[in-house]
């Protein structure tokens, strides 16, 4: 059975499609040249800092609905890659910019300002039934997590701990949390034993430790506070007694060495645009409240004010 009528439609459809494709390409050419109609502030970078930037952008847009502030999650490194070429205005970062990245920025003539917007306290968690490992020293943590470690029972951590299998859960090696934890505990970035259950999704780690009586894991403070009824948190003794991660101990820096700062980097050239400057000031003025709303810990008011004053 032949259906010649089909091709009457198809022919015109093909022509329409061809025009569309041509039209799309020419439209794109124009778009790049003229830019968008409404002003934009482009943010990309760490998915850890993302909730803070999203919260600030969301609130800021209530005052300036004419602005578009899309936020991306390319990761800290991915964000810097776009930042040092001037492609984006603001880069979210869960670690400071590396020397190599600074060099690249300098090469491209990009000057920037580093701002600390909040703190995160990496939290070590254990199963709800585990009541003996309430506090561990940094040395004990190192003995568990260092690359050569073969500790697989709690009684190897401390002699008085019961004979119980120790199983480890942690973020995968791409994560900034992993970078920071290995540096703070094992003394060298990325130095970690590798025979632990790794996941890029912290909620998977929560599931793992909450279902494993001998389990231990670490992730951002927000994932502990949201799941505190499922998990116990370990206090960390960094030399001055056992400190439990909390808003206060992270804020005043006593929860050491596992408190880490969250940064945003602003392109100084973008900062000359009034809307970007307004946004950055709004960011620093409201970060304390909004960061806590999404599970992070704010800086002291004076620390934010000092950064605002330092913006030239």
């Amino acid at each position: 059975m032949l259906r010649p009528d089909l091709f009457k439609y198809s022919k015109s459809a093909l022509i329409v499609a061809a025009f569309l494709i041509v039209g799309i390409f020419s439209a794109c050419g124009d778009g790049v040249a003229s830019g968008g109609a409404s002003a934009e502030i482009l943010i990309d970078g760490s998915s850890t800092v993302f909730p803070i930037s999203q919260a600030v952008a969301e609130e800021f847009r209530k005052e300036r609905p004419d602005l578009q502030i899309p936020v991306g999650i390319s990761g800290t490194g991915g964000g810097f890659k776009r930042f040092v070429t001037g492609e984006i205005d603001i880069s979210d970062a869960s670690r400071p910019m590396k020397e190599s990245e600074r060099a690249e920025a300098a090469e491209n003539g990009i000057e920037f300002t580093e701002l600390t917007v909040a703190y995160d306290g990496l939290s070590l968690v254990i199963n709800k039934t585990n009541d003996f490992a309430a506090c561990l020293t940094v040395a004990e943590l190192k003995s568990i997590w260092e690359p050569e470690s073969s500790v697989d029972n709690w009684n190897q951590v401390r002699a008085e701990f019961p004979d119980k299998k120790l199983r480890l859960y942690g973020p995968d090696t791409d994560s900034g949390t992993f970078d920071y934890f290995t540096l703070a505990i094992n003394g060298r970035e990325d130095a970690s034993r590798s025979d632990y259950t790794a996941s890029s999704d912290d909620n998977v780690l929560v599931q793992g430790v909450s279902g494993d009586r001998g389990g231990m894991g670490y992730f951002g403070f927000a994932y502990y506070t949201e799941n505190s009824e499922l998990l116990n948190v370990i206090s960390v003794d960094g030399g001055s007694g056992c400190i439990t991660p909390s808003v206060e101990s992270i804020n005043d820096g006593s929860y050491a060495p596992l408190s880490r700062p969250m940064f945003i980097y602003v392109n100084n050239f973008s900062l000359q645009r009034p809307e970007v400057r307004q946004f950055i000031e709004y960011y620093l003025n409201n970060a304390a409240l909004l960061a806590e709303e999404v599970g992070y810990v704010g800086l002291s008011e004076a620390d934010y004010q000092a950064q605002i004053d330092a913006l030239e």
Partner: protein
Amino acid sequence: MTNPAATPSSRQKLHAVRVLRDRIFVTGFVLAVVIGILGLAALLFDVLIDGLPFLNWHFLTSYASRKPLDSGILAPLAGTVWIVVMTALFTVPIGVGTAIYLEEFASKSRFNRLIELNIANLAGVPSVIYGLLGLAVFVQFLFNGSRNLTAGALTMTLLVLPIVVIASQEAIKAVPSSYRDAAYAMGANRWQVVKAVVLPQALPGMMSGIILALSRAIGESAPILIISSLVWVTFVPASPDSKFTVLPLQIFTWISQPQHAFRGIAAAGIIVLLIVLLSMNGIAIWIRSRYQTRPEQ
């Protein structure tokens, strides 16, 4: 035809073994189907239980938010529709054209066989690789750094093109050669045969390939994470050179948030994704059945 040496009792035994074997295999096949369906049903049930309470008009017409209950899915929904429509516009002519050339016009030379082999291999390349390719070729080279819908759709086109080409080739191969011979006998030239005989017959099979391909394009998040990276967008893309985000990327972001309520929001997002997928497939199946013709014996 029966073995004259076999006694009636041994023949009965053989028969019983055959019946048993038959039963075992039928049970095995039914079990395979049931396991698949049950898994899917459990998944759907779970998503519906979690997501339905959050699925309402506000969810469909709002933008994402840090507060789970204020969150909506408008921007990624619009982005996904744009991406799928544009991917279809790019993929269908190129994919079907390639298949027609390879099956009806190209000689079976070593070079053409090499092309076919390569297309089959491309279907197995991980999607992240296409994302990186799209970033280098489309975003940086073609669009001068603009991470727009067209770059996303072209990347998706590369990703799903092998599926369309292979399915279309199979559909064309399935057209009986007696049909072509009859058309040639009536004086038709090659293109007339393709246009009037092969394509209408192969269309339903091609549509199946296109459905599969676009379903894959809807569900992919890895290439779009590289091309767009945006997960907080507060506008509906107005043109093909607009910035965008897509449903799987937004769902992925919601699932990894610490707040529990975001899991319900993510489930609601999955329901929306399923509805888009099903309605798109529904349209394709409708087109297919409109043009489906059975060869007369």
